[in-house]
């Protein structure tokens, strides 16, 4: 990876003093992860360019950290890290250009605090968010931004563009400012870090961000990406399984969830859905309830606030979701009287599960559309035949309503993981069949604004064990 800094300040070779590196020599510095080289491709009175080149040992990258390599995933070996600008570059800037980064220069102190014409080029800068993100981060800081993209593979144009860009920043300013911006924003663009992020990173960000970060329009994004959190061990195991078929199930699941909530957010549909579920559960008189497919535990949070629910069991097939639910519910800090009311279990609705027997009610909120249609019969038996709660509250999207979402392209489901979405008639046919086969009665409730033509955005069925009462 390569960072070049050019100035046309006269004499341009003063850049050597500012960077504390002689323009006539090539110098090398040993760093923890490889070597950094500084050399000058050009150095004249009019124009001087300093190049910072990193040689990262690709094999050491993994070996150094994990010892044996057992348990790593393939991407750590076939890796873009040796070639791109990443958090390694920030470390190199701090260590090789440290005095310039801090705005000091003993030989030319006035130059260090002077605004001079500068041009920086970063080759192979990965940008999650593409050119738009590059501009969003640097333009508010007053740079003239030049971006050149690259294809993934010119042999296969259908594969599209790569995430790598060559970035050029032009501006008249102090060198320390330019280096500081690169120091903070390069890892933010890349959105990966080569070290674990801890408390000290927060201090570092506050120090380096002084004077510019607070007013930056993309401040929240910068902060959240800079302080990237590590993932749980269980998630790593799932990632290993995903293999060649899917990159990172977590990342893509999050992205998809975002997408769905964007589609639905304007009506606060999720809140209305949970509210309706809560009403139905209260009305049923249930005390011991299941939340099947509980996800991150939003419904559980509501149920916990109502003491009439004495036992709340949340189940999900995603271990990662359960971890997040545990955090969201602050399970480790709940008072004992609440703690014993709630339990999170890992399970799957494709299997019969004895732990689910004997409950008053089950909520199955926006879950069935994530099951492949051939799993519906197993789901039906696992819930209505084996677990057999007195009440089942089940919601799923009404596909007819999709035409009312402006942001949803025609013919698409609301969420990329949806395996199907049903019309009102399809849902009612299925629900009536389930009720008939298992001795339940069923009624339906609309959730969200009911459209006279296409119905409500979410449809709900409430199943009650036994024949119709009243």
């Amino acid at each position, binding site marked *: 990876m390569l960072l070049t800094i050019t100035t046309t300040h006269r004499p341009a070779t003063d850049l050597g003093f500012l960077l504390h590196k002689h323009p006539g020599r090539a110098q090398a510095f040993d760093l923890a992860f490889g070597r950094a080289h500084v050399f000058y491709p050009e150095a004249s009175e009019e124009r001087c360019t300093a190049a910072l080149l990193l040689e990262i040992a690709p094999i050491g990258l993994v070996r150094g950290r994990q010892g044996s390599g057992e348990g790593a995933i393939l991407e750590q070996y076939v890796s873009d890290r040796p070639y791109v600008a990443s958090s390694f570059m920030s470390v190199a800037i701090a260590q090789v250009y440290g005095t310039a980064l801090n705005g000091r220069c003993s030989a030319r102190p006035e130059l260090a605090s002077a605004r001079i014409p500068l041009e920086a080029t970063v080759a192979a800068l990965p940008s999650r968010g593409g050119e738009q993100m590059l501009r969003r981060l640097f333009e508010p800081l007053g740079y003239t931004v030049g971006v050149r993209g690259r294809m993934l593979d010119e042999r296969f144009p259908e594969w599209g563009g790569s995430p790598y860009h060559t970035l050029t920043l032009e501006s008249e300013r102090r060198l320390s400012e330019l280096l500081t911006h690169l120091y903070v924003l390069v890892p933010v663009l890349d959105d990966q870090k080569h070290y674990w992020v801890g408390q000290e990173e927060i201090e570092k960000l506050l120090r380096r961000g002084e004077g510019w970060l607070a007013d930056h329009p993309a401040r929240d994004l910068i902060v959240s990406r800079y302080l990237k959190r590590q993932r749980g061990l269980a998630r790593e195991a799932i990632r290993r*399984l995903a293999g060649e078929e899917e990159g990172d199930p977590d990342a893509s699941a999050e992205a998809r969830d975002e997408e769905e909530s964007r589609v639905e957010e304007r009506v606060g549909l999720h809140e209305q859905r949970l509210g309706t579920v809560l009403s139905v559960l209260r009305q049923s008189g249930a005390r011991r309830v299941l939340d099947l497919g509980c996800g991150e535990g939003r419904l559980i949070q509501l149920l916990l606030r109502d003491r009439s629910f004495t036992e709340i069991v949340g189940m999900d097939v995603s271990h990662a979701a359960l971890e997040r639910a545990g955090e969201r519910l602050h399970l480790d800090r709940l008072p004992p009287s609440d703690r014993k009311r709630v339990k999170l279990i890992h399970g799957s609705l494709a299997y019969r599960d004895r732990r689910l027997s004997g409950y008053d009610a089950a909520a199955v909120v926006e879950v069935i559309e994530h099951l492949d249609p051939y799993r519906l019969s197993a789901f039906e038996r696992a819930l209505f035949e*084996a677990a057999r709660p007195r009440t089942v509250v089940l919601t799923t999207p009404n596909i007819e309503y999709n035409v009312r979402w402006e942001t949803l392209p025609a013919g698409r489901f609301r969420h990329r993981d949806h395996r199907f979405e049903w019309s009102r008639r399809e849902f009612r046919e299925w629900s009536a069949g389930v009720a008939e086969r298992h001795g339940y009665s069923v009624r339906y409730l609309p959730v969200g604004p009911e459209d006279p033509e296409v119905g409500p955005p979410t449809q709900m069925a409430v199943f009650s064990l036994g024949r119709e009462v009243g």
Partner: protein
Amino acid sequence: MKITIPELCLVVLVGPSGAGKSTFARRHFRPTEVLSSDFCRGLVSDDENDQAATGDAFDVLHYIAGKRLARGRLTVVDATNVQPEARSPLVALARERYVLPVAIVLDLPQRLCHERNRERPDRDFGPAVIERQSRQLRRSARGLEREGFRYVYRLSTPEEVEAVELVRQPLWNNLRHEHGPFDVIGDVHGCFAELVALLRELGYEVKVPGGEGEYSARHPEGRKAVFLGDLVDRGPDTPSVLRLVMATARSGDALCVPGNHDVKLARKLRGRDVRITHGLAESLEQLARESEGFRAEVAEFIEGLVSHYVLDDGKLVVAHAGMREEMQGRSSPRVRDFALYGETTGETDEFGLPVRYDWASEYRGRAVVVYGHTPAPEPEWVNGTINIDTGCVFGGRLTALRWPERELVSVQAERTYARPVRPLAPDAATGPGPRPAEDLPDLQDVLGKRLIATALMGNLTVREENATAALEVMSRFAVDPRWLIYLPPTMSPSETSREPDLLEHPSDAFRYYRNEGVPVVVCEEKHMGSRAVLVVCRDERVARERFGVEDGSTGICYTRTGRRFFEDAALEAELLARVRAALDACGLWKELGTDWACLDCELMPWSAKAQQLLRGQYAAVGAASQLGLSAAVQALERAVARGVDAEELLERTRRRQEMATRYVEAYRRYCWPVGSIRDLRLAPFHLLATEGRVHADKDHEWHLRTLAAICREDPDLLIQTPHRRVDVTDEASQRESMTWWEELTGRGGEGIVVKPLEFVVRGRRGPVQPALKSRSREYLRIIYGPEYTAPENLARLRSRSLGRKRSLALREFELGVEALGRFVRREPLHRVHECVFGVLALESEPVDPRL
């Protein structure tokens, strides 16, 4: 005094301190059979006499006793047990585990107890304690039977205690030593003509003299008939049925368990007040014509029947209405009730009949359970249980199951003798009848730490965290479990080569097999695509009947993690149709006597499935390396041009750029756009299984030869796998194949797979790797990164350890073969699923992914 107890029971010793309970227990029972309250007090408090620990000590004692009884171990409770409230939890425990509680009371003179205690320094309590205990004992001792103890023995002198002879009696239902062969016959209900016809069909010589004459049925090969009860009611000739069954049971030619109808009849014959419904009237009327003596004989016979039998070393259980695993071989009123009536949910259906609890769908026992009781149009296997009541009296058939052959034999009813309340077969008027009992895997079949018994390697362990990871992938992404009868194992590379610029070379694979005592191997070209497993059925009917898949599909193509290979259903259907046509054309169906086949294949191009990986990973690294390195080379060239001393760095960077280019070339070889099936290539290399057979008993040349015949039928799609047979004890043979490897990898091939000639081989110390791969130098760039061939990198990469990978490869291989074995033996779905799930779980074990 002789004390007789059942071989499995809960023995409760009752007596005050010092009565000699522990001494008695030591003399008559194994130390592990005896649970003493003193010992448990010590366990929880370090002090056997700490009375404050009594509550906790009994919790522990009850817990251990419960576990022992659940496992079918006789258990003795050595505690004073002088108060009813101390004994009642023990009686409850015995009931819960379906065993009989037995009380042995040591009611010895107080003086003696007190003397004995005085001799023991740790028992310093005074005579008052013993006096109180004796009082409590006397007050309640007479009610022991009422408390629920089935057998009560009282010993009141040291001499009596001394003279005890304890006899353990086998349970009546334990006929494990009887190996048959058996013919298990379903509900007869007075259908005598059909019973005789069925017995003759089964090969019995049946004598029917009529009237009071001597009835008999005997099989020339010594087979034994087993009647599942409900001999009586509804049908035309209940007395003759009873005569024949009673005679054969007496002569040892048959066994019989009681049905609910039989028991009700016996109660009526004994003068009890029962409701005359469900066909009892017919029996009574027919029996009224018989002698008083015969009626008494019938009642006595029925009363003497044992609720169920465990036969053939525990492999077969027979009972009228079925038998849960935890009740098998037990005896208690609840076991008897279950055997007679089954279990109901407490609800009633639209015909007013009780809704039966579907115990069979939860059944996970190893014994096959054969039962009747509920008429169904067809006998159907569910989790190793089968209901063979095919409603003869309702105009259906009388059915027998031959054991151990598992064949069904039946005769049609001569006519309809009675009308069922609920129709037997579904018809348009009443909608769907009883739902076909479909097998639903239970979470307990897959989650938690698992021990899976395999035929080849014994028990294999799957760790809990791996099962956890697999559950999500299996539930969210895998294909229908009914199709998923196999998952392929991972494969280890050969040992790291000692050649200076190579990591892998076939000679190391040859040496491995030679050292394991395998003289002949087969080298197959390794196709670089994605692993694909194909299940191909001859038609929709086979998919429905053999696989239980009813959505109209006729096969499937899935990946090594059990996902559907194609998102495009039409493309999958087209591929399956082409393969099916090739199978039709080459006559494989007939040759192997099968209607379906499971093939292990590689599907090309790689880019067809690995799009995301290629774009997100391989092409991305290629783009990044070319972009980053070319900018670096340009900058360095300018610096060197102006005289900066950076030539060495420039040279090194140019070499890196060159390696990056070769890396891009390496992955491009395995990519081409897929517009239609014309762009796909399928290379099958194992014909894994067909009906009744797992072809792990054939060598790899058979597999390749058989598959070649299929491939020749459609050479545009199907690719034969080039291969060589190599004698690893012969230099020339090995050299020849190494030249082939060089040629092949020189052309850009991925490499070769070396397999022992036989599919399954045991080596010096156990099973041998089923295959080893030797991959090409350029291919490994995709695995180890663009610059792995730089000498300093190669040196570091050589120290790779293969142990874990090999252990995984073996375990996954065994589980895969086991899964197929269970499927072809028609074991229940959850038994197949357990193995396949195990493979997926093992795949999540951490192992160096580059191997």
